[in-house]
């Protein structure tokens, strides 16, 4: 019998307006406990204002073996960078 509680991936938003960032994982029996555990494990030093929890089994990942065909072709496509725009000074998190 498997006695391990399911694993959850935790995402924390450090400030209103920013995006949620992956901070790590933890064990919990359900989503409610995952969020409470995340509060105690990952926000005890004022790291965040919002928590997302996703059960790890629902995360699908790309295969590292495919890295060549997936990412290398972008290497020489400099024109895809939006470097021609001037950003307003108020925009701090681009």
């Amino acid at each position: 019998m498997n006695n391990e509680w399911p694993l959850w991936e935790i995402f924390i938003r450090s400030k209103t307006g920013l995006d949620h960032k992956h901070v790590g994982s933890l064990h919990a029996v359900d989503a409610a406990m995952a969020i409470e555990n995340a509060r105690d494990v990952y926000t005890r030093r004022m790291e965040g204002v919002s928590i997302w929890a996703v059960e790890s089994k629902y995360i699908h990942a790309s295969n590292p073996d495919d890295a060549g065909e997936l990412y290398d072709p972008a290497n020489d496509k400099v024109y895809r960078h939006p470097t021609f725009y001037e950003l307003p000074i108020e925009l701090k998190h681009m």
Partner: protein
Amino acid sequence: MTSIHQLNYVLQLADNALILGHRISEWTGHGPILEQDIAITNTALDHLGQARSLYQYAAELYNMLPAETQGEVFSSPAFLNHTQPATEDSLAYLRDAWDFRNVLLTEQDNGDWAYTIARSFFYDNHSVLLYTALKDSKDATIAAVAEKSLKEALYHRRWSSEWVIRLGDGTEESKARMQDAIHARWEYTGELFDMSEADKAMLEAGTGADLALIKSQWLAQVAEVLSEATLEMPPADAWMQTGGKTGQHSEHLGYILAEMQYMQRAYPGMEW
């Protein structure tokens, strides 16, 4: 003007926070799972933080009392022999069990997880209501501590209630253990609502809280969670233990103090 009642009132609050905080801290490194070990340790630190603010205030109040009145407050030799002004540390480390005013509930042993949860569940529901009332205290320091502590207490209550429901409405084994703990700790809940001399005087002065009112709200809150947890609520008129608020403690407090105070008693004034 400072009075013995005001000092004793603050000490009741401080001693509850310190003793429960110490009890809960005994779980550090022994929690059932890493995440809950951290959660319960956070809670212990919250209680210790509340205790510190309150002891600092209590020391201030004690030091303002006239010398002859000071002599009536405590009878612990180590505290009385300490010649410097009282501090948060001397209040915590130099008083003996009979000078502590915490309710008996807070000093009860941890038992299993269910016993620890039951003790916190009863206490947290009480502190949310108490701090809510004390937020409007005429005593500005008490009001400030209550306001800060209320947020912590709300989370503690959420955490302990969640566990009561999980274990109560869980497996046959978890339900039996949770029910057992609720019954076993019930007799220590009555004292939370006993009006001590200090409670009465502070209520009259507009700085304390009406514990009769808090009791009715507490019973309603506890009943709601226990019903969701499919657990039986013991009768409200059951026989209750008393004594903590007047310094008559169970055997547990002596052991807690022996461990907690050992270092300061053996090496007075030691710092690190």
